[in-house]
């Protein structure tokens, strides 16, 4: 029932097209070479071009979008007997030496995908972007239209990525705002992707303005994450969390290394009392791994944090930065931990991005690194198939190359079964369309109804079919009890029905892809009101894309450097 004294929350509109990819083209008016935004619109394929001399232009490439997409995907099929690289497409990346924007050939080589770049100043370079060419190519078929915020902070002047904030050419709203509330930290992580200056704690009033700005732009936010630095280093962190806990924000997440959580029980209790969620950085289980990634042995600190989480039943997301040759052998262990506790709602793997104060200089081979398929493969291998490679799908909310995920339904015996075992996500793409969690929209309800009936009809063929049906029934009973729940209780109850494993590959100077940035939905809101797509901010604004003291792009603006929004 709608509140009689409040206006209903308006729904963010869809973008007028489905953003698909970037492609090389020329201005139809003056002929200068420009990278086009390829969009699917009203059944046609259109190149949207922004010529600095002639202004916005567009060119229809095909009147049959379905056929065009099929031919695009066919370009990813390597001819039999081909020796050498197979060109799939082009995009814009960065030179790993000078960070200039350069054209990249996207090529398939021995079932893997590489960017081949040639910077006029620094020369050629190569970067691995996917360890599975089939996954990479097929991911494009998951492209779906984004939605747009009610308010873009910037208009388009010079085009992506220079107008960021976001500009009205951006293809997705802010699904996950991450506010860096401090640049102080109690660790010096060798893999740190930010660049702590130990000089700023965000004022509560400033933070409140940022939240106001988010609500103005988004209407409602499913999630709001507080990060840093280490946000628990902020002397007024509880006040900031209280400010964030408002009706327009569904879930407030404190991203933390867990040190304070484990040793300050009053603080942990306060987190619980506020209803805040924990995003616990947990990249391994042994001293050597912690030392290599976080700079010191944190085995006891992580154990203490996990104990506090379990004791207080704090809803938690585990965050695992995965680095080849350092902690990728402990991927299965974190999955097992995640599956073992009802307090763990999601597990977020981040294949390491080699950017930031630590990460920019962290030892790595850009041509032989972990990417999303590599992490999924290790999940499969190290859990003995408990969670399989085929359980994962690209999330079309962001660019499909950015995030992969699987949902797992909690069964009656406490174990979980991936949704992909009983949901055909290619058929029910709505369930993946717009969000990391399932919103209660008519489309989602419709798709879930089909899923229930599909399982009902095929329960003898589906692995653990009757148990899945029983779990779906339990979910209904718990989410729609005879005695109505308060909205926040409903939120919590629904979260307990399933878990999710995400893989989010942030970009660095090697694998930066302007096409992906175009649809980024993980944003850093800034004190001046700009809402910055994360990888663009890390690459061009933070000043640490290659480690400390990396020169910023000419349009770069450092964190905490501009006046606070009025």
């Amino acid at each position, binding site marked *: 029932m709608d509140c009689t004294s409040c206006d209903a929350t308006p729904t963010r509109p869809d973008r007028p097209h489905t953003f698909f990819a970037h492609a090389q083209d020329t201005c139809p008016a003056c002929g200068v070479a420009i990278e086009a935004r390829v969009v699917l619109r009203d059944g046609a394929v259109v190149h949207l071009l922004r010529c600095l001399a002639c202004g916005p232009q567009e060119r229809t490439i095909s009147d049959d979008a379905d056929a065009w997409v099929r031919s695009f995907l066919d370009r990813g099929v390597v001819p039999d007997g081909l020796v050498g690289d197979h060109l799939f497409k082009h995009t814009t990346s960065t030179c790993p030496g000078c960070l200039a924007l350069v054209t990249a050939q996207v090529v398939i080589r021995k079932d893997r995908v590489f960017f081949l770049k040639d910077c006029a100043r620094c020369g050629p370079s190569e970067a691995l972007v996917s360890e599975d060419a089939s996954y990479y190519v097929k991911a494009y078929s998951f492209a779906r239209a984004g939605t747009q915020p009610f308010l873009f902070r910037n208009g388009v002047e010079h085009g992506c990525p220079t107008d960021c904030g976001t500009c009205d050419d951006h293809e997705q709203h802010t699904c996950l705002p991450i506010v860096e509330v401090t640049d102080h930290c109690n660790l010096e992580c060798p893999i740190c992707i930010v660049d702590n200056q130990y000089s700023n704690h965000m004022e509560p009033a400033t933070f409140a303005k940022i939240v106001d700005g988010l609500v103005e732009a988004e209407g409602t936010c499913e999630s709001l994450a507080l990060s840093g630095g280490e946000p628990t280093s902020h002397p007024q962190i509880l006040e900031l969390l209280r400010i964030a806990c408002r009706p327009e924000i569904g879930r407030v997440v404190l991203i933390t290394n867990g040190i304070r959580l484990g040793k300050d029980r009053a603080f942990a209790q306060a987190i619980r009392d506020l209803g805040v969620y924990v995003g616990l950085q947990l990249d391994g289980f042994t001293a050597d791994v912690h030392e290599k990634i976080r700079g010191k042995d944190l085995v006891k600190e992580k154990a203490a944090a996990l104990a506090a989480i379990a004791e207080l039943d704090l809803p938690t997301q585990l965050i695992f930065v995965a680095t080849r040759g350092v902690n990728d052998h402990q991927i299965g262990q974190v999955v097992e931990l995640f599956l073992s506790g009802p307090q763990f709602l999601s597990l977020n793997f981040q294949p390491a991005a080699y950017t930031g104060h630590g990460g920019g200089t962290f030892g790595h081979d850009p041509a032989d690194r972990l990417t999303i398929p590599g992490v999924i493969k290790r999940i499969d291998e190290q859990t003995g198939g408990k969670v399989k490679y085929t359980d994962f799908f690209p999330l079309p909310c962001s660019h499909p190359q950015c995030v992969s995920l699987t949902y797992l339904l909690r069964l009656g015996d406490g174990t979980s079964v991936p949704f992909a075992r009983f949901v055909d996500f290619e058929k029910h793409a709505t369930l993946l369309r717009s969000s990391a969690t399932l919103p209660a929209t008519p489309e989602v309800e419709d798709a879930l*109804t*089909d899923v229930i*009936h599909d399982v*009902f*009809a*095929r*329960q003898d063929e589906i692995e653990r079919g009757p148990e899945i049906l029983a779990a779906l029934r339990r979910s209904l009973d718990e989410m729609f009890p005879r005695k109505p729940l308060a909205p926040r209780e409903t939120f919590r109850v629904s979260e307990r029905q399933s878990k999710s494993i995400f893989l989010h590959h942030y970009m660095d100077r090697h694998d930066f892809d302007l096409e992906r940035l175009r649809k980024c939905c993980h944003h850093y809101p800034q004190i001046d009101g700009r809402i910055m797509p994360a990888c663009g901010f890390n690459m061009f604004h933070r000043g640490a894309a290659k480690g400390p003291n990396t020169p910023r792009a000419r349009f770069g603006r450092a964190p905490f450097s501009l006046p606070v929004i009025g």
Partner: protein
Amino acid sequence: MLVGGRVALVTGGSRGLGRAICTTLAREGAFVAFNYARSDADADATLAAIADAGGRGSAHKVSVLDKAGLGALVKALDAVHGKIDILVNNAGFGQVVPLALMEESDWDDMLDTHVKGAFLATQAVLRVMVRERYGRVVNVGSLAGIKMMQAPVHYATAKAALKGFTEALAKEIGRYGITVNCVAPGILDEGVSDHLPPARKEEYLRHCALRRVGKLEEAADMIAFIASDRASYTNGATLVVDGAV
């Protein structure tokens, strides 16, 4: 033929209206499986009637209240035919008893057989229909569940429940190409009407425009029609077959 090539399951098919439904569906081209709870001899008679109508069928001794038995029956039919196109929820019985004398067990037996039986049979068969994205469910209701007339309260309640069952289920599963309808006969010349007191029949005839009770075949013909593709846009409906009372 109305239902040529279709596979039908009729509950309570060994006697009365159930036998007429089986015979009619068989004559109209369907393979007709039916279940029954008691008399093997009656079941054999129905099988013979199906054969006389030029059709094929099978009899299965399982109660509509035996969930596991129904599941096994559906599985067996599905294994042989690969589908079940038509379900007629017909199982039921009549009982003349005023509320004042009604035992709790009378109430339970009546509601269980008519309503719970329809629920269990439908749930079992729907698995196949949803998979096949096709189905025709026909519930046998009664005029007693629709109009104010002198009828046993538990019987009228059970038949009224089937009307609600029909409408709600039609809404829920129409998306899978499955229609759900209810056929509500008035008094027929055989079956549950056999034990009606003469005064009730006389009252009925006074109000019936056709001045006669119906024949089993007349109700069965309507059921066969509703179960056919000729009635493809009829869904959630209750069709009264009463000669205009």
